[in-house]
C-alpha cells in the first residue's frame, strides 16, 4: 500500500492504495465516490469516465498513482453549491438518460468536449463521445442535450 495525494473535485484528498490501484477503484472503494461507474473495465464503454486536467479519461485504465498533481473531476463535482450544471439540466430535459448508468460518464465526456470546443458540430460531438456507450437511449437525446448546451439554452 502507498499513500496517495489526489485533487478530486477541487479538494485535496489523502488516501492509501495499492501501487497498481486503478483510479476507478480508488474513487469508488477508497473514497466512496460511487457516481463513477464500473462497466466493462476494458476501456470500451466509458461508464468510468472522469475528467483529468480537463480531459475525459477512462478511469478503469488509469493508475491512481499517475494522478498525483492532476485535477480530477468526477460527476459529483459537476454541480456547484447543490445546483445542477447546465448540461445536467439539459440532459434531464432532453431525455438524454434512461437507466442512468452511462450518464455520469457521458456527462464527464460531454463536459470535457464543451470545454475544449464550446460549439461542436455533429461530427465533433460524435468524436468527443466516441468512447461512451449507451444501450438505452439511442443517443438522440444525448445529442440534443449537448447541442442545446452549446447553443446556450
Amino acid at each position, binding site marked *: 500500500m502507498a499513500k496517495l495525494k489526489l485533487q478530486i473535485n477541487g479538494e485535496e484528498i489523502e488516501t492509501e492504495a495499492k501501487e497498481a490501484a486503478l483510479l476507478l477503484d480508488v474513487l*469508488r*472503494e477508497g473514497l*466512496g*465516490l*460511487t*457516481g*463513477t*461507474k*464500473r*462497466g*466493462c*473495465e*476494458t476501456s*470500451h*464503454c466509458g*461508464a468510468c469516465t472522469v475528467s483529468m486536467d480537463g480531459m475525459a479519461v477512462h478511469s478503469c485504465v488509469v493508475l491512481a498513482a499517475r494522478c498525483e498533481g492532476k485535477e480530477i473531476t*468526477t*460527476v*459529483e463535482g*459537476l*454541480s456547484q453549491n447543490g445546483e*445542477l450544471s447546465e448540461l*445536467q439540466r439539459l*440532459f*434531464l*430535459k*432532453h*431525455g438524454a*438518460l*434512461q*437507466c*442512468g*448508468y*452511462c*450518464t*455520469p460518464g457521458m*456527462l464527464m465526456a460531454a463536459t470535457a468536449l464543451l470545454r475544449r470546443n464550446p460549439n461542436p458540430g455533429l461530427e465533433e*460531438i*460524435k*468524436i468527443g*463521445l*466516441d468512447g*461512451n*456507450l*449507451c*444501450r*438505452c*437511449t*439511442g*443517443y*438522440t*437525446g*444525448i*445529442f440534443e442535450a449537448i447541442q442545446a448546451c452549446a447553443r446556450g439554452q
Partner: protein
Amino acid sequence: MQTNKHAKGRGFSSVGKPAPRIEGTRKVSGKALYTADTLLPDMIWGKVLRSPYPHARIVRIDSSRAKLQPGVMAVLTASDIPNVLTGRRLQDMPMLARDRVRFIGEKVAVVAAQDRDVAEEATQMIEVEYQELPAVFDPLVAITEGAPQLHAELKSYKGLPKLASSINNVYSHDQWRIGDVEQGFRDSDHVFEDTFTTQHVHQSYLEPHSSVLSIDKETGVVHVWVSNKAPYQTKQSLSDAIGVPAAKIVIHVSAIGGDFGGKGALMDLPLCYFLAQRTGRPVRMIMTYSEELMAGNPRHASVIVVKTGVKRDGALVARQVRAFWNGGAYGAMKPIPSVNLPGAVKATGAYRIPNVRIDSYAVYTNSVPCGHFRSPGLVQLAFAGESQMDMIAKSLHVDPLDLRLQNALRDGDPTPSEGKNGMVDVKCREVLESVADSANWKGFKKSPGVGRGLALSYRNVGIGDANARLSVGPDGIVSLLITYADTGTGAHTILCQMIAELLEIPLGQVKLEVGTTDCFRFEAGTGASRVTFVLGQAVLNAVDKLKALIRDWAAAMLGVSAQEIALEKGRLVSKRQRSRSLSLAQVAAAASASGEPLEVESYHEATETPAEGVFTACVAEVSVDTETGQVHLRELNTVHDVATILNPVGHQGQIDGGIIQGVGYALTEEMVMEDGRVVTLNLGEYKIPNIKDLSPLQTTLVRGNAGAAPFQSKEIGESAISQVAPAIANAVYDAVGVRIMDLPITAEKIFRALRDRNPEDDASSREVVPGIV
C-alpha cells in the same frame, strides 16, 4: 373499480407532458444507487472459476493450494453446498457444477477474499481434472437421436413444462394450430420454404450483473442488493436454493443499470450466501464484462424454417413455422411457464392466414444458457417471416408493400395469439400506409447500390400482478411506494404523472419510494411490457381508494356528506358552499392527528391479455458498397400505432433505444462462437452501436383513441425492435440483389454473396414444387 377509461379527450395537466424523470436528478448527480454502489463495512469479494470445456465430466477438484493463499477466506465447490438445482421456472442448473460441466463458462468453484485480485488469482490455483465428453452446438444436431443427451435426468426436474417433448434435448415444445396447413399447401398455387438463422446477442446493459449479500448476525436475516428486476421471484428462488425460509430474506430493490430482459435470474446470489455464511462477512460479486459475454443469459440463437403457401393473386393460404431455439446448456434462465419464448405465438406475423402451424422447440446445446431480451422470440421470428414476405413478393412480381397490405390483419381475424375472435381496433393497414407515406415508398427513385426494405410486426402488453401503496403526509406530499425496480424505462415517472393528473396536483407534490420485498407479499416484477398496464392499473386503483378516503375525511371535517365533496385542483371543496374547502395537507394532518394517517394499498392482477395489437412498421434505406459489401444505413422510418402518450420524451426514448438495438442486431452484434466458446469477450469485439453509428430516424405515430393500458395508452417498450433487421435485410436485397438469411448482415457475407452470385440467380424464395409438402 377504476378502469383505464380516463379522460378520452386531451387537455391533461400532467399525463402527456414531457415530465423529466423523477429520479433524474439523482442519476445526473451520480447519486442513484445501483447494486455495486452499496458499500457495506467489511465486505469481501467473491470470484468464480469457470469451465474451459463445453462438455466434460469433473473427475477431481483440488482447491487445497487456493485455500492456502494469503488473504483467501473461503473456497467452495459443489460438495460444499446443497445439491439443489436452480431456475426461474425449470430448475435444471446447479449453483456450482457437480459431476459435469455443460458449457464453457459454467461455474465450478468460488473463492472469497478481501482483495479482489487475490480472489481472482486464487481461482487459477484450483486444480480441476476434466474428462471431455462429446459436445453439441447446433440445435438441429442436438435434436437427432445420436446426439449426446445433455440432461439424462430431465424428467425429474422441477418446473418441467407439460410441453416437454420426447425429442432428444428438447425440453419445451410449444405449438399452435389454426385450420389445416397441409390442406392449405395443397390449395396453394405456390409454396415457399426457407431457412433462416440468427445469432446470439447480449443485452449489453452497461451495468454488469452485481450481487451484494449480508447475513444479519443477530437475526439471521439475509439482506440482498442485486441487479435483478423480479425481486419476489428471486427471493423465492434464493430461498429454495439456499434452504433459508423466504420470510428471512429481504431484497432491497436497487436502481438497475439496464435490463432489457436479462436481469431476472439468480446468477451469483446463492454463492454470495454460502460465502457469507462461511466467512461471516458481507459478500459481493460483480461479473466482469468478459463473464457477461461468456455466461450472461443472451438472446437465443435460432434456426427458423418458414413455409408459406400463397394463391397466385398473393393471398396467404397457409404458413408453417418451425423455430429451433438454441437454448444453451440450461433452461434455467427462461421465466415463462412453458420455458419457451413468448414471441413464438406470433411467429406467423401480422397477417390474415387461414391455416397456420407453429412449432417452437427449446433445445439444449453445450453453449451459454439463454434468456430473455427485448421481445424475446419475436425479434428472431420477424427477421425470418418478414424476409420471406419480400422473397415471396419478388417471386410473384408484386410490391412488398402491396403483398403486406393485401394480407394485413383486420379486426376480428383469428390469430394464434389472440384466438378465434382476433383483435379489435386493428391499425395494421394504417401503419403500413403511414410508413409508405412517410418514407415515400412509391415515389422512391432507385440508384445503383441504394435500396429500401419494409417490415411489419405487432405485439401487445403483458399480464401479471403488482402492488401499490399510496399515502398523503401532513405536508400534502402524496407518496407512492412500490417495489417494481427502475430499469430505465421511465415507468416511475409515468406513475407519478398519473397520480398528479388524477389528484389534480402538481407533479412536484408526488414522491415515489422504492421499497424492499418486505413491503408486499408477491408480484411479477418489471418485464413483459406489463408495467404501465399492470402496475399503472394498481396505481389507478389506489388513487380511487385514496380519493374515497380523503372525501370521507373532508366530509367529516366540513360537516357535510361525502357526496357533497368535490376534488378540484388538489383541494377538497364543498359543492354547496364553495368557499369551504380543505387542502390535501389539512386533511392528511387531521387524519394523522387522529391516529389514522391517510394510506391505502392496492393489489392488481391482470390475467388476460387484452385483445389489442400494437402494430409497427419500418422502412430502412441502405447503400451497399459492392466492392467491400459494407452496408451504410442511410435512414430509418419507423411507424407506431399509439393512443395516449403518457410521456412523450420517455416514449420516444423507448423507440430510439429499441430501434438502435435492432440496428445492432441486424448489422454489427454477434457473440461469435467457436465450438461453444464465445470469442468476442469484450465490448470492443462485441460491437453494440455507438454514437457514430447513429443514423437518421424518422418516427411517425398513428394515433388512435383506444388503448388497453391506463389513460388509453399502448405498449412501446418492446415494439421498436423486431422490424428493423428484416427491413434492413430487405433493403440490402433491394440495393444489390443479395439475400442474407443469416444474421448479422456483415460486409463479408454480402461480399461473398456478390462474388459467388450466378447471374441467373434472382435470390427469390426457394419454391417447393406445389403439391409436395
